């Protein structure tokens, strides 16, 4: 299955340090929240991309491998970890298990693919305005993202469109320690 990314970088056949040098350049062109896919054949690039992303504060989402081609997914972050709560109806991450409702995951498709809560529905934040029809207003909707920031905005958007049973899950997937479902 292919994973959606905003930009693709082809670093196949390049030896270290070039995959990282090119990734660094490409990331500079992205805006916050966008996802870059880096295709590389240098096996060492996996550990290095992850470590590099951490040092500069980007989010390393994951890597797939197919036919000796590695595909790394990185999301550009600025200050994603700062949670500004504005949406009032929140629910603790620990309380959603076993509740009758829909977990709506508004992270990017690539993030969702590398690990989400079983049963969660994926609608990336950017697609929410055009895909609201897929949601049921009568159902409780628990919105989740990585840290609680994007889900907060999504919850506000839903509320503005007449959804009343909306909760923002705090904290986000970063605090989820149970099993992760993958779709890669």
């Amino acid at each position, binding site marked *: 299955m292919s994973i959606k990314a905003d930009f693709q970088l082809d670093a196949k056949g390049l030896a270290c340090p070039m995959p990282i040098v090119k990734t660094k350049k490409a990331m500079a062109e992205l805006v916050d929240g966008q996802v870059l896919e880096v295709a590389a054949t240098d096996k060492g690039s996996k*550990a290095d991309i992850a470590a590099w992303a951490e040092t500069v504060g980007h989010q390393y989402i994951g890597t797939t491998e197919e036919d000796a081609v590695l595909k790394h997914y990185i999301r550009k972050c600025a200050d994603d970890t700062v949670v500004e709560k504005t949406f009032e109806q929140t629910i603790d991450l620990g309380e959603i298990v076993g509740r009758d409702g829909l977990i709506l995951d508004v992270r990017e498709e690539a993030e969702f693919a590398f690990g989400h809560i079983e049963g969660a529905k994926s609608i990336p934040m950017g697609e929410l305005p055009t895909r609201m029809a897929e949601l049921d207003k009568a159902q409780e909707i628990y919105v989740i993202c990585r840290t609680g920031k994007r889900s907060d905005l999504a919850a506000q958007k839903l509320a503005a469109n007449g959804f009343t049973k909306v909760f923002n899950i705090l904290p986000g997937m970063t605090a989820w320690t149970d099993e992760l479902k993958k779709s890669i």
Partner: protein
Amino acid sequence: MSVQQWSAADVAKKVINNDDLFILDVRNNDAFEDWKIEGHKFEYLNIPYFELLDGVEEILPKIPTDKDVLVVCAKEGSSLMVAEMLADAGRPVGYLAGGMKTWSEYLEPIKVGDLTGGGELYQFVRLGKGCLSYMVISEGEAAIIDAVRFTEIFTKFAEEKNVEIKHVFDTHLHADHISGGRHIAAETGAIYYLPPKDAEEVVFDYTSLVDGTAVQIGASKIDVGALYSPGHTIGSTSFVVDSKYLLTGDILFIDSIGRPDLAGLAEDWVGDLRETLYERYRELSEDLIVLPAHFMIIDELNEDGTVAKRLGELFAENHGLNIEDEAKFRSIVTHNLPPQPNAYQEIRQVNMGKITPAQEEQTEMEIGPNRCAVR
């Protein structure tokens, strides 16, 4: 200022001569923590290359100007980049050609000693990986024990010494590195021996190596005699060479002992390990010089670069030979073991002949330290 290219042999010389060297390792922190170039008098700085993409100014104060500086990475590309940046900043530095990959493969042949009637015993020290291979030479013939996969180094060495390789042994089925034994045998027409208890799953022909198997190298009196010594694996076999040297394989090292778990049967084999170390070896002469198949830390190297020590000294100093209580011994060698060697299960498959990965893949599999010991 230009950048100097260093070969693995240049670095090996620094290790063996106990020279000073400052290593700027630009791999990521995990890789460095896991495995690095070890030297008695080496100093290190680990800054991943990707933190230096915008320049090296910040680290300049940490780079000494009064000793050799070598930049090292996994393959060489990043170290060359960083070395050039340092050179542009006016620092005379070198980089390691081929990086840690080449370092992992480098072998340095060192003479251990003379044998009866003009024979010689050589130890091939694979500094980067801690593997030790041996060649016994006498009167135009040679035997090789625990050869690593770079067969050409052994066949070329034999050519230089003008000897014919007649016997090739593996003390056991290795789990940390890929054996070159059967390939050397196939190339030279030598006989390849493997302990049958380790060879139940192998898919090639071999000659059984059992307790008491003895071969003569050359016409005179150099005996290579096998001594069954299970524990690291169930087939592990030691050799006594010329009544002077004890090749212990992965059972006994200079500063540690073999771990019994790499074939998945720690609980079953710990008793064998105990018996080998505390009974069979005790019956041998304490004047035998122990020559193991590995070293783990640089302190195990002697002044001349060899890894060798009198058995009597090991009985006195090696922690693993001095655990009186059997239950304590059992617990030490089956619990809290260090992580297993990289790709050890696949490496066993290769050594059984079940899979034959490409050279590049074999290199990847052997990356990292050997980790065959428990201390």
